[in-house]
């Protein structure tokens, strides 16, 4: 009886100790269990623990899609000290609901954050305050089969006409110019964004996603006219509405399609599909309206502090730590992406990273992505419209009118 009692007391005591988080406990919910992202994140955590021996980090690594659903529950019920999330309009609901901590003080006081993140600061801001720290971003552009281009004597296209010409040559060689998988819609938004950025520029992109320009506006119609040209002369693979972006890699890897408008994360998947570095090339989406300043898509991934966090001091310490140039350099070398810190080193052995860095660092403006810049409901309707347009271009008028209707309701 006595032993039983002692054991119970011991159990209760240890349960209590585990329950009451000490001052040095830091809980992080991360959202990418892929081998490289996980290793890079864990390396950064280990470096932080080595620098701060009094802090004990607990990391929960969840699947990306599961994280998107779970975050709404854990932010209000049982908040970690740090969580992964996306900037731009994607963070807006949580910022507006008061679920994210305002860390403008950190952005102002930390010499590294205040000087090396100028390009990306606007995306991390809402209501003039900063809400998170980005740890990575990546370029978008056109990936192409360098070997197929060489076999057919096609040069890397620098202008819209050259790209259309490349499409003609590919078609006559029996290769579908572009692959894409629009089952999950957002890939079509990438194509739309680029056509719109190249036709009208960065300001129009922002005005459209902010609801200030109607979809039936002549400028947006011009974008769709260019898209129509692209559909006719540079056809996309058939059946794209039933494929995910990974499914759409198959025709690219098998040489049935020559180009892919994509983000840099696709390179790893292309190599997994059996392509070598020499077979894959990258070029910036070519200029359409001459003389227009070149803006790029460059979505960022970031870390945020929930307002319900228990250990906000160490959380701030952690965010400042992972913003350092060497940490950002290591992290992104591992995952094959770009460090948002402009003083961080990039992996010079990776030609896509070198070109990507060149692409985004010389861009006149960085867009997040249609579905991160526009509010969720508008993004959903818009991307369905893009998909419908790709399949039934003749319905353009009806689609644009429908998008106007959604826009009117969403931004009221």
């Amino acid at each position: 009886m006595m032993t039983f009692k002692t054991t119970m007391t011991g159990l209760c005591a240890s349960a209590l100790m585990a329950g009451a988080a000490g001052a040095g406990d830091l809980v992080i919910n991360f959202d990418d269990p892929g081998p490289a992202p996980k290793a890079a994140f864990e390396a950064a955590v280990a470096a932080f623990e080595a620098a701060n021996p009094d802090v004990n980090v607990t990391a929960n690594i969840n699947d990306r899609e599961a994280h998107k659903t779970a975050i709404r529950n854990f932010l209000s019920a049982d908040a970690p000290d740090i969580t992964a999330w996306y900037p731009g309009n994607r963070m807006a609901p949580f910022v507006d609901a008061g679920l994210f901590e305002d860390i403008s003080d950190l952005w102002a006081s930390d010499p590294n954050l205040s000087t090396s993140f100028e390009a990306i600061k606007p995306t991390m801001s809402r209501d003039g305050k900063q809400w998170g720290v980005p740890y990575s971003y990546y370029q978008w552009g056109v990936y192409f089969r360098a070997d197929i281009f060489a076999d057919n004597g096609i040069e890397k296209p620098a202008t819209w006409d050259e790209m259309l010409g490349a499409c003609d040559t590919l078609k006559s060689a029996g290769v579908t110019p572009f692959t894409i998988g629009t089952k999950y819609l957002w890939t079509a938004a990438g194509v739309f964004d680029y056509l719109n950025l190249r036709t009208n520029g960065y300001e129009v992109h922002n005005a459209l996603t902010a609801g200030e320009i109607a979809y039936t506006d002549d400028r947006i119609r011009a974008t769709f006219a260019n898209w129509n040209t692209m559909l006719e002369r540079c056809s996309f693979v058939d059946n794209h509405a039933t494929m995910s972006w990974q499914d759409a890699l198959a025709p690219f890897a098998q040489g049935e399609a020559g180009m892919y408008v994509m983000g840099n994360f696709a390179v790893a998947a292309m190599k997994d599909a059996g392509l070598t570095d020499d077979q894959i090339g990258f070029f910036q989406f070519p200029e359409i309206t001459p003389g227009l300043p070149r803006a790029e898509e460059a979505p960022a991934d970031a870390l945020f502090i929930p307002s319900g966090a228990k250990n906000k001091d160490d959380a701030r310490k952690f965010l400042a730590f992972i913003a350092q140039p060497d940490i950002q350099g290591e992290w992104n070398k591992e995952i094959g992406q770009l460090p948002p810190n402009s003083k961080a080193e990039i992996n010079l052995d990776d030609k896509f990273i070198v070109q990507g860095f060149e692409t985004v660092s010389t861009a006149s403006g960085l867009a997040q992505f249609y579905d991160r810049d526009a509010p969720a409901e508008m993004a959903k309707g818009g991307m369905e419209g893009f998909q419908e347009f790709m399949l039934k271009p003749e319905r353009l008028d009806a689609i644009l009118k429908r998008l106007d209707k959604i826009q009117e309701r969403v931004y009221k």
Partner: protein
Amino acid sequence: MPDPALPQRNWLKANRQRVAPWVFLAPAIVFFVIYVIAPIFQSMWFSFYAWDGLGEKEWVGMANYVELFDDDRFYTSLKNNIIWLVLYLLAVPAGLMVALFLNQNIAGMRFYKSMFFFPFVFSQVVVGLIFTWFYNPSFGIVGKVWEFFGASAPSILGDERFVTYGIIFAGLWPQIAYCMILYLTGLNNVSSDQIEAGRLDGARGFRMLRHVILPQLWPATFLAIVVTVIGALRSFDMIAIMTQGGPYGTSNVLSYFMFEQALSEYGFRMGYGSAIAVILFFIMLIFISYFLWVMYQDEKR
């Protein structure tokens, strides 16, 4: 010493017969109220608000319903729900045919029966995935068959004209198996006296089926119709797996539309989603009350 608990115990003793069923029912009633009845009224209540699930709820009155009845996607979903309802009911006669075919005494019949029942054991998600691959025009079996005849295959799940039918066809596979099992158990109970009597009166073939066997199978038929109608109205998993309502929302049904608006990545319009749920609930209510009424009439007889 007088026992203070005595009068109460006497009451219990006297009313034991009446109290016992309620005691046994209590746990079920409590959970039914908490998890079924209360959420129904909660959804109705939410449907009058604009709410993103996080911030403050804002009272908007009938605005969600006004928007819903002006929403093309709602009518697309409703139309698809009706197509589902009509075509999904094909599972009932198809299940009957399979059951009649399998209701023989041949060696190994149990094995064949279990093979036919197999698709119902699969998760709907698996069935959806299998058919997604079937339908793929470049490597799926549908594509190969078309190729064999020298034609280029249609993209069944990528074409608004075929997509809903493609998903329903996939959904019929497990549903036919389900109806088949219901009929097989029903066929076990068909009385052989009546069949012999029918045979003496000269009934055979289709007339035997129509006038002797089918009437005896009425309980199985009724059950098969009920589960099929309810299955058609809440068809969700197949759509989520095969198309996510696409291309551009043309294969949506009310249940998936509701999920998309309330809980998906681009949704979190709880009020609007609730309004869809309420409409779907009333549609289901029509069928459920009809079924309950039929059952009640049967009991009375």
